[in-house]
């Protein structure tokens, strides 16, 4: 036998051994457990968002297990699946994880607008809720058409109206927006394009002009876009970026001499990981936020105490990211998901729940100031009340400015303008319902 043959044979044996091991090692499941799938992404251009947010999410659940023994005695379990932020891998992860655990997957958080879109129909058919906190399909806020989708806290359109309100405040009143020029620099994806119609609508209403400029994924080259912006001389640039696109935008803006304190980012461009790589070029940059960074919240202190002590290590590899934007967003994911399970337990009993039961919990989720205090999350999260009509539940954002070292909040909660957003959502949801032949639920009967 020649050498190649030996290599080939040994390789075949290796693969077969691995396959056999993989097949037999199915872990035994205890019964009093609630399974939460973690469709994370730790590689690729958006890894910073994936590792930070899922790090916080997993650490919060781990903390609940260690501090309270789960939720009312039901232990929380999870399994990660790498989606690489790709839709097809995300669908594979969804299918792989949906039946895990004694009652199946509880609730999916994809942290990707594309994967959320791709799984809405599957999840609705499988009766598993999808939570998309601050991303995903905006018109899913209409719970009558999308019973299983929850774009909690605020969706893109709400946030966008708050942003225009903020720009109005900065200019000295909404009437001062008349004649202003705004550029919407957006990521060339479903996520990026989501706010174009609402901006056009507001441009008409307030009398400013808006120019939409696309940056192709992943956005590592923006020279031509920023040269165009320099020619347009807009009063404001809305940066609808994600991942590596953000620091590149700030650096290129500095290069062409556009003032950074006139660039207003979406919350997906408002993390430390988005500005630090841009160095000094990021100073003065403003972004929206539906939660602050920082470690001075009792809930974060608890995570530190129970998860990162006594030789135990949490999910974060680099502890210096503890309390940063993405990490805190993960903590919020943890709070909202587990509070929904807790709410559902109050109705269905303290046992592992099915996705359908957790859906009820999400729809009846009500976190008021008092509950926020008990959770140790005052200031981290806004009070939120979800209903059958409104799957968003919050709708306010703050704005923050990067001072070169950290994010400083520069406004209080700014309420979104639901008088603009809600009719659009209902119109869009109704169109979807018609396309798909869905009869919207009657919320008075829920």
């Amino acid at each position, binding site marked *: 036998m020649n050498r*190649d043959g030996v*290599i*080939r044979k040994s*390789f075949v044996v290796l693969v077969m051994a*691995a*396959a056999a*091991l*993989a097949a037999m*090692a199915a872990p035994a499941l205890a019964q009093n457990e609630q399974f939460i799938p973690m469709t*994370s*992404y*730790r*590689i690729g251009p958006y*890894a910073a968002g994936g*590792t930070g947010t899922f790090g916080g999410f997993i650490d919060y659940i781990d903390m609940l297990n260690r501090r309270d023994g789960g939720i009312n005695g039901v232990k929380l379990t999870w*399994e*990660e*699946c*790498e989606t690489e932020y790709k*839709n*097809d*891998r995300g*669908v*594979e992860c*969804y*299918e*792989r994880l*949906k*039946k895990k655990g004694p009652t199946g997957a509880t609730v999916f958080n994809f942290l990707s*607008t*594309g994967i959320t*879109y*791709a799984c*809405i*129909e*599957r999840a609705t*058919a499988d009766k598993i809720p999808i939570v998309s906190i601050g991303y995903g399909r905006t018109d899913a806020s209409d719970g009558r058409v999308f019973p299983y989708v929850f774009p909690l806290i605020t969706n893109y359109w709400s946030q966008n109206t708050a942003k225009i309100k903020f720009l109005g405040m900065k200019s000295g009143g909404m009437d001062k927006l008349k004649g202003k020029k705004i550029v919407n620099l957006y990521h*060339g*994806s*479903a*996520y990026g*394009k*989501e706010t*174009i*119609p609402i901006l056009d609508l507001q441009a008409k209403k307030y009398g400013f002009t808006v120019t939409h400029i*696309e940056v192709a*994924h992943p956005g590592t080259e923006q020279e031509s876009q920023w040269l165009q912006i320099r020619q347009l001389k807009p009063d404001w640039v809305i940066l609808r970026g994600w991942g590596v696109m953000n620091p590149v935008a700030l650096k290129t803006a500095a290069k062409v001499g556009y003032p950074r304190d006139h660039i207003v980012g979406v919350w997906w461009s408002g993390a430390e990981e988005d500005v630090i790589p841009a160095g000094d070029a990021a100073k003065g940059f403003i972004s929206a936020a539906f939660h602050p960074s920082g470690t001075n919240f009792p809930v974060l202190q608890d995570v530190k105490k129970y998860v990162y002590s006594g030789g135990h*290590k949490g*999910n974060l*590899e680099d502890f210096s990211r503890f309390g940063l934007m993405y990490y805190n967003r993960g903590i919020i994911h943890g709070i909202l998901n587990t509070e929904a399970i807790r709410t559902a337990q109050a109705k269905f009993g303290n046992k592992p729940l099915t996705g359908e039961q957790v859906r009820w919990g999400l729809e009846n989720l009500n976190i008021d100031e008092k509950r926020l205090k008990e959770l140790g999350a005052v200031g981290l999260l806004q009070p939120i009340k979800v209903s059958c009509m409104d799957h968003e539940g919050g709708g306010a954002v703050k704005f923050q400015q990067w001072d070169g070292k950290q994010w400083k909040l520069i406004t209080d909660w700014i309420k979104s303008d639901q008088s603009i957003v809600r009719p659009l959502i209902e119109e*869009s949801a109704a169109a*979807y319902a018609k*396309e*798909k*032949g869905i009869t919207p639920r009657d919320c008075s009967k829920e």
Partner: protein
Amino acid sequence: MIYREAGQFKTSYAADQRLFPIRQDRIVVAAMLAIAFLVLPFIGNDYWFGAILIPFLILSLAALGLNILTGYAGQLSLGSAAFMAIGAFAAFNLMLRVPGMPLLAAFFLAGLASAAVGLVFGLPSLRIKGFYLAVTTLAAQFFTEWALTTFGWFSNHNPSGVISAQKMVILGYRFETPASRYLLTLCLVAVLALAAKNLVRGRIGRAWMAVRDMDVAAEVIGIPMLKTKLLAFAVSSFYCGVAGALWAFAYLGSVEPQAFDLNRSFQILFMIIIGGVGSVLGSFLGAAFIVLLPIFLNVAAHRLLPANLSSSLASNLEIVVFGVLIVFFLVVEPHGLARLWQIAKEKLRLWPFPH
């Protein structure tokens, strides 16, 4: 001994020109089809249909399309994903705008639409060869993505540019379960794969291969360059277009143009390089390698690696192992997995008495 053809006499031209001239091949293909059609639908579950088999079959079809163009006709292309996108969006628009459009007709017309665009982008191949042609096909890739993103008409003015595929209904039967979608995909892929196999052994396929091996010589012996090359582009785009339509309708249900970006084109190109350039079987093997191996590695990493190993490391490790395996296979067999199978076949013919 297993593959010995001794005793299989061909007494007519028809027998000599069969699709699979060796009896063992016929048996194996029939058995595979029987398993795929009759056994898998009963033993598979939603996960296998919805997440593994359907994407594998669809990408095999796309790889087959590229293999016709690159493997058989020798025209390098980096635009396969663009043709998939055209197929997906064309099928969506046909279903949307033509009342009473039958689903299969929409798929067929979507393939034709894609073929028409393929023809246009195939024109440079008459003047440009090799790597230079690959670069010109990049134009197809970027132009398609740009056009589908820029003109809202294609996505029915969806604000985020996402199309959401209509329900699949044929003769009143609704393809809703993953198993039924799998069977529909399998039917189309099986028919198109057999058609491709048939095509490449006949006059057209021979003309393609002649062009591939030396186009000047092919022209000298009277093969029309224009017709042959453009036909390869058209047929290849047709296959990719149908694959794209299936990707949107049978697999994801909703797609955006970015689902068919340059990375997808590269993925399909890698499939045929690893699977075997110029081989129908290779398209399937390559698709299996590129689609299934990362998933297998991910599952294996979860099961085999110690639980306290950080998940970031595990994710990166998968990519590393995947890359190493690609290098490994290309080093031991530069002609792809299909060639490995061919070698195995030759060995089996002599076994157990190799001389």
